[in-house]
């Protein structure tokens, strides 16, 4: 499974700080951070720890099996974001 971020994300970066495996992107300071409309979770890296759900001030993060119907399409969009540029590429020093 994985977690996803819905379109109600306000780019408060609390989830980025909370994520123990650094799989939420783009991060503040990344080249595409300012133009990103929201943050995304990399399904290939996410360890389902729930920390981002706790951290999000607007409840925009969902476990895939708990995602409300209207946000289901975001499963694909989160994955697509990393298909373009993976977490490994994003976190390479």
């Amino acid at each position: 499974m994985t977690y996803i971020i819905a379109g109600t994300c306000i780019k408060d970066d609390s989830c980025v700080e909370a994520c123990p495996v650094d799989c939420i992107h783009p991060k503040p300071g990344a080249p595409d951070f300012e133009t990103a409309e929201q943050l995304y979770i990399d399904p290939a890296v996410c360890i389902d720890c729930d920390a981002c759900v706790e951290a999000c001030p607007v409840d925009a993060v969902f476990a895939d099996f708990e995602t409300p119907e209207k946000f289901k399409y975001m499963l694909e969009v989160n994955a697509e974001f990393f298909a373009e540029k993976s977490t490994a590429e994003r976190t390479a020093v």
Partner: protein
Amino acid sequence: MAKAKQRVAIVGAGPAGAFAADRLLRRHGNVEIDFFERLPTPWGLLRGGVAPDHQEIKRLDETFERETLARGCRLFANVEVGVDISHAELMRHYHAVIYATGAQTDKSLGIPGEDLPGSWPATQFVAWYNGHPDFRDLEFDLSGPRAVVIGNGNVAADVTRILTRSPAELERTDVADHALEALRSSHIEEVVVLGRRGPAQVAFTSSELRELGYMDGVDLVVDPREAELDPLSLRWVSERGTFTVRRNVELLREFAASPPGGAARRVVLRFLRSPAEIRGDGRVEAIDVRRNRIAQTDDGALRAEPLDELETIHCGLVLRSVGYRAVPIPDVPFDERFAVVPNREGRVLGSDSEPLPGVYTVGWIKRGPTGILGTNKRDADETVACLAEDLAAGALPSPPEPGREDIAALLAERKPDLVTAEGWHAIDGHERDRGRELGRPRVKLAGRDELLAAAGGTG
């Protein structure tokens, strides 16, 4: 005796001000923070801007409460800085003042007929449906079958949804009662949304764009010819397009390819169309729209170039959504050209371009009206870093009247209807209680008198 805490006033209790208080307390805990707010209620555009059908986002108020008021920040609401208390007076009571007043008016289009009755800034429509007390008495004419929304940003998307959502959906939100009543008897069947450039240049987020295409009982109509990109935009998208731009282009192609479903209401997205003139005999009857094409400027940017082709769209309501604009604060520097308080990383600059000691700014009045809620958090971090550095360096002299109670006594005397955190919590509790009875998140009190009465006695 412990050294008295340094004192900071934040003018404007909207998201930028709230994030600034939160960040300042985290970074430099040994301060006392007071909010000054023009309205009787805090949280600015979170309450008065964010669309009522985006209720999830409004939950951020719980974070603001927890991180500011619950941590001892005081609220002085229903107090206007520059009217009820001056900048100079604030400087007598605080080590530092942070201006976070946002952008309270709209940009104009500069076309004939813009000010005809029936042509409104979208921001006023937003303030009206969100129960902003200064806008509750506006009367929008919803009796005609068609409205035109000018602009392709998220405010344009918000007003378009509110004009076309069913009353049953709106009833589950905290939309203001006067707006709900007016929208219930609305005759609007079609909302035409005009973008001056093409699908690759819209300012909608792809989530907002997608939402327009998936509303119950509303068809989204996009002309396939207008959804196709011109060669310049095609190249730009492949070379420089963001993830959002690519998704928007794809979504618009999908919408253009799907036939309308015969719903009672429809949203029509038009591209490469600029308003030329708003016409009517004493009120809005039509808008003349000029066709554009995409051209490239010397610096490589893609702009709209007008063509010699006009069409007329008949409509009874025009909402102009081409951006917010900040207004000057009395006795505080203001850059008229960019409509911001001149600053360097949040330190306000005087006429000599040197920082004014103890004066800071954050949010839209600092950087211009761009970004989303969370953008204010990083913006606040930048301003607060400067302020914390100045506080730690002892660069901010003690004000002549540093007593915590002095300012409270002054305001209580000058503003008998001052609203404090207690008063706000009475308003909030009252609104939520009324909402609970009706299965709504809250029922807003939209008049200043009602708000003050609900706060009453506790202030």
